[in-house]
């Protein structure tokens, strides 16, 4: 019998002011409802438009657990289509990305569709004469996702009509995208380097929460970042600190460092760490970069862009971006206990190549299935996924620096070790989960 479907009160009861019920992480019915509500009533990241530069270029991905594709239409706009043939359901694209030419052709029965999804042709069409096909769902072609927004190259889609519009949903949080894009002297990013795909046997929200969890690095990553610091101590005196040590070492920064970095929360579950400084603040300057930025923006504006060192910005429900190093992570839900983490990297157009080199080094040291920092984190998530089966305590605690006067859907800057952003995410979860029930 369904415990949560059709029971708004039961869903709302899963989120308390400072506690989250374990069913939010381990229950398959809750997971299914998340796919129908949280991932349908919100703006979910699809891809970057540099992945589809030319008409006919497509890229296949998912929203929640549903296959979709992003395609550059003949009018140069980016469309998002449900990735199934309206005939028998066959996924249309064969490769993850490619060029469809002027139309998509289903590999099963050769039904073809324009790149906006509309039906172009059916072989042996006379077999449908007088059958009323024109009234069918199939005749409408590949269903486009109605609500699509391209923000400075980042393409988002919302599957349902309910839920706020793009600007209302993201509001001021878009400033983190602005900073990432502004770091290119040309004001443009391109997906580059290749995507790291890392399978996690845990709930997707554990990863999301971890992005603003500033009390774990010096503990969970002592094994990797701490060891990096210890090994580097034995380097001959006067050796230049390598890029890799610059990347690892700040994970061992003190509690005080993280407290002072600050956390900002925004409405609808978005928020970021690193208001004042972050683990990315003290990287060595890349030769020639500032000169290019100053030429493009003027010195003052260039400094303002580069002095913003936000750490992790979380976009509800499942995206995290790192502006200062041009990296995003997408936490793709597969099941209550299974998540695919995709880590994408970007080239700053017109910036020195060494920036991309550092971005890629960061990605493989921190986000790869072969990354020691990744091993540290995944071990914790998987232990939690297991531990949550304990009946004696069925609640996860998110109480750190809680203030009873804290209101939902507000903008605030606070102590960098607060769990407010986690509470913010779960309040948004409760809202978007139930708004169309």
């Amino acid at each position, binding site marked *: 019998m369904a415990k949560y479907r059709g029971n708004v009160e039961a869903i709302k009861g899963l989120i308390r002011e400072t506690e989250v019920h374990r069913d939010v992480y381990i229950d398959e019915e809750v997971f299914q409802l998340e796919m129908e509500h949280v991932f349908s009533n919100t703006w979910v990241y699809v891809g970057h438009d540099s992945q589809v530069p030319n008409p006919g270029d497509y890229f296949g991905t998912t929203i929640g657990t549903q296959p979709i594709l992003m395609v550059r239409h003949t009018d140069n706009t980016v469309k998002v289509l449900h990735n199934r043939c309206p005939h028998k359901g066959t996924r249309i694209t064969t490769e993850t990305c490619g060029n469809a030419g002027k139309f998509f052709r289903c590999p099963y029965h050769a039904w073809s569709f324009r790149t906006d999804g509309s039906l172009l042709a059916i072989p042996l069409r006379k077999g449908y004469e007088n059958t009323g096909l024109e009234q069918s769902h199939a005749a409408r072609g590949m269903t486009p996702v109605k609500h699509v927004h391209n923000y400075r190259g980042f393409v988002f889609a919302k599957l349902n009509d309910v839920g706020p519009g793009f600007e209302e949903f993201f509001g001021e949080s878009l400033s983190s995208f602005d900073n990432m894009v502004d770091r290119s002297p040309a004001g443009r990013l391109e997906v580059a380097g290749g995507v*790291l*795909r890392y*399978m996690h046997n845990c709930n997707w929200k554990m990863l999301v929460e971890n992005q603003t969890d500033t009390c774990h690095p010096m503990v969970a990553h002592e*094994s*990797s970042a*701490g060891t990096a610091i210890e090994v580097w101590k034995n380097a001959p005196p006067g050796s230049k600190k*390598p890029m890799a040590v610059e990347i*690892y070492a700040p994970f061992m920064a003190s509690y005080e460092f993280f407290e002072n970095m600050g956390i900002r929360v925004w409405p609808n579950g978005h928020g970021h760490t690193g208001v004042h400084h972050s683990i990315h603040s003290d990287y060595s300057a890349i030769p020639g970069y500032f000169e290019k930025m100053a030429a493009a923006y003027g010195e003052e504006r260039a400094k303002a862009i580069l002095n913003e060192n936000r750490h992790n910005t979380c976009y509800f429900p499942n995206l995290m971006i790192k502006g200062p190093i041009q990296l995003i992570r997408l936490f793709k839900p597969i099941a209550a206990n299974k998540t695919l983490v995709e880590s994408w990297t970007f080239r700053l157009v017109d910036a020195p190549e060494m920036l991309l080199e550092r971005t890629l080094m960061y990605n493989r040291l921190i986000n790869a299935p*072969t990354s020691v920092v*990744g091993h540290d984190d995944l071990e914790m998530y998987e232990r939690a996924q297991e531990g949550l089966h304990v009946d004696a305590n069925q609640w996860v605690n998110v109480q750190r620096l809680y203030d009873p006067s804290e209101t939902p859907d507000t903008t605030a800057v606070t102590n960098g070790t607060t769990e407010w952003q986690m509470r913010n995410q779960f309040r948004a979860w409760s809202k978007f989960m139930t708004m169309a029930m």
Partner: protein
Amino acid sequence: MTAPTDQQLIDFVIRETRLIDQHRFEEWLDLFADDGHYWMPLEWGQTDPRLTTSLMYEDKLLLKIRIERLKGNRTFSQKPKSRCHHVIQTPQVERRDEQANEYVTWTPMHYIETRLDQQDLYAAWATHTLAMIDGALKIKLKRVDIVNCDAAFGNIQLFM
């Protein structure tokens, strides 16, 4: 300097995998030249380790960090420890360039990594670029191409 025989190259690669399987990581690291690298590409047929992402592209310092980390008392992802096992074909000597002091071998292999109840099997090719340095063979580059290099993997914690 005496050039290595083909058999010496083959024996070197066989011993190298054995040191990994026996967790003799310090001895294994000593097989690398000071400027040696371990490279595990992410892309099929990848040519660039710098501006294309890799699963691993590590110099001796980074490999040393990994090896020290495996021993750490607070390395929770190694409690309990992973174990591994290689099945390799006889390494094939791909190229000998005595003038340039460069010797390349190619070795198809199956690699198994286990931890707790989990056992993962990977199929891969190892390409070793070796050089004679101070009378001993050393690794300039060990490149491991996993057959499904672009698949979504869980943790890979040891060395292929």
